[in-house]
């Protein structure tokens, strides 16, 4: 006789995002469709191909000198903890400590082997650029001791796992804009397989010229200088994405563990699925075929149907090709019942590796606070959106089940299904 499969539930969230660094601020921004985008000029005097971004004014990790990074006094962060981290490590540590506090878990409880850590981050191209420039200047003889651990893609999990004394699973996920969603999906599997009682899932991005500007080379960035309209997913005027940085952390645990601790369950991750386009390194399948398969696999995993979905947090980044492909995939899946669809990237911009986890956390907020975000900045929907339902304002409605879509380079598509704990 086999034991029943554990259920993966969410008991804590932490946000360091352009919509706020407090949960209620994020809820309010999503409910009232308040944008977190603002003018961004990281290299004054140059005419950069990007003018605006999702910023976090209360933090400053823009310097290549960690000694002058700053964060709000209320954040329990010591300079020695972040000195060797990539810049987004500061965001990540702050978000993770917020999530742990919300879940009611002390850091001293994490080192027992039944807690794992999965992270998503592209590393820090900024620190790598700086360190390699100095190395070249030294005649390639003097690498800084932190050259590797402050910059490469796994740097987030290196530091967080050691700082928090994680002795369970630890891994970093790198699938571009699907990374955060992969981290959450595989964390769900760790719980379901009984390998871990708790999984900490963290995604972060630094937002720097080095991270963002290369996207201009493929025409993926919006050149707009109007924060109010630049990020307009599914709109005919969309012309590229607006970047953002920050971090989101999520505490996932088995329902049994949460119940035993008396922790409040905010949502259940009922299923997930992934499927690759197998077509192109950077462009999506024009029909969204891979995303459609991922959505169907996620629904099957959750034991639900398209008719059970009341809300979809779409991946749509405000790029011409990606949004159209997703709209077509959504059309194929939702033939009759139409859930309320929105891409919250209209408010946040695109968080790259962080996006999928940030939006999964938004789905948790939607389930936990009984609302569905509306679609901001949608004035003239793309023709591919005909028949889909994009509420122009947020709905005061308790969704039964929510779908979270993510897609990344290489045609990676990941979908989560989240439901109420009841």
């Amino acid at each position, binding site marked *: 006789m086999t034991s029943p499969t554990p259920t993966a539930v969410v008991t804590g969230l932490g946000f360091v995002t352009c919509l706020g660094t407090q949960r209620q601020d994020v809820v309010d921004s999503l409910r009232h469709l308040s944008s977190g985008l603002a003018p961004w000029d990281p290299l004054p005097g140059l005419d950069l191909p990007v003018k605006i971004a999702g910023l976090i004014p209360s933090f400053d990790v823009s310097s290549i000198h960690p*000694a002058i990074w700053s964060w709000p006094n209320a954040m329990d962060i*010591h300079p020695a903890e972040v000195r*060797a981290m990539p810049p987004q490590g500061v965001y990540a540590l702050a978000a993770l400590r917020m999530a742990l506090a919300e879940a009611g878990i002390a850091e001293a409880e994490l080192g027992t082997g039944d807690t794992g850590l999965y992270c998503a981050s592209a590393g820090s191209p900024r620190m790598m650029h700086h360190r390699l420039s*100095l190395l070249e*200047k*030294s005649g390639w*003889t*003097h690498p800084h*001791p*932190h050259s590797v651990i402050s910059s490469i893609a796994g740097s987030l999990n290196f530091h967080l796992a050691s700082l928090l004394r994680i002795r369970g699973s630890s891994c970093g996920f790198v699938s571009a804009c699907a990374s955060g969603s992969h981290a959450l999906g595989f964390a769900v599997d760790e719980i379901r397989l009984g390998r871990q009682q708790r999984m900490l899932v963290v995604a972060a991005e630094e937002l720097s010229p080095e991270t963002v500007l290369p996207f201009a080379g493929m025409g993926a960035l919006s050149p707009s200088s109007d924060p109010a309209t630049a990020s307009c997913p599914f709109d005919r005027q969309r012309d590229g994405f607006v970047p953002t940085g920050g971090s989101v952390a999520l505490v996932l645990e088995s329902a049994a563990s949460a119940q035993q601790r008396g922790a409040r369950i905010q949502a259940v991750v009922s299923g997930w699925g992934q499927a690759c386009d197998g077509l192109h390194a950077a462009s999506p399948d024009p029909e969204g075929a891979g995303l459609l398969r991922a959505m169907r696999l996620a629904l099957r995993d959750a034991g639900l149907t398209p008719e059970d979905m009341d809300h979809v947090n779409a991946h749509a980044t405000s790029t011409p090709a990606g949004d159209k492909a997703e709209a077509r995939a959504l059309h194929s899946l939702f033939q009759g019942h139409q859930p309320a669809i929105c891409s919250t990237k209209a408010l946040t911009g695109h968080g790259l590796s962080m996006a999928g986890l940030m939006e999964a956390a938004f789905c948790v907020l939607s389930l936990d606070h009984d609302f569905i975000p509306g679609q901001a900045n949608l004035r003239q929907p793309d023709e591919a959106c005909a028949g889909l339902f994009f509420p122009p304002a947020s709905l005061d409605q308790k969704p039964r089940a929510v779908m979270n879509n993510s897609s990344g380079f290489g045609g990676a598509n990941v979908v989560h299904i989240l439901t109420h704990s009841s």
Partner: protein
Amino acid sequence: MTTTPLPSLAFHSKTDTEIEQSLLGLDPVTIDAVLRFRHTPARETLRDMLPGLVAYHLPRGAALPPSPLTDAMRLAEDLGLDSLALSEMTFKLEEILGFAAETREVFEIRTVGALIDFLSGKLSLS
């Protein structure tokens, strides 16, 4: 004592601004010692700057090093510097004092006295 002349790499031609950036995060006592050393290099001034440099490179919550540091104190066992922290501290010393060290040389340093001897040799101090 004879020493090898410093190679004329741009790395060793730090501007004042670059030096100031390397001092970011250090306490005033340590910065004062560094500036005194740059004005009048002396072996004992190296000892003055070490407690602050060691403290800067320790993890959160670690016991602060005693001041002054004695030659017999072991960098790892007594002061809590692991090999990465020692490498980082030496790198910072290279930046602010202007010398070049091989990583393998650094890993052979075990005590405060050995570190001061090492630095004195690199900087041609008597």
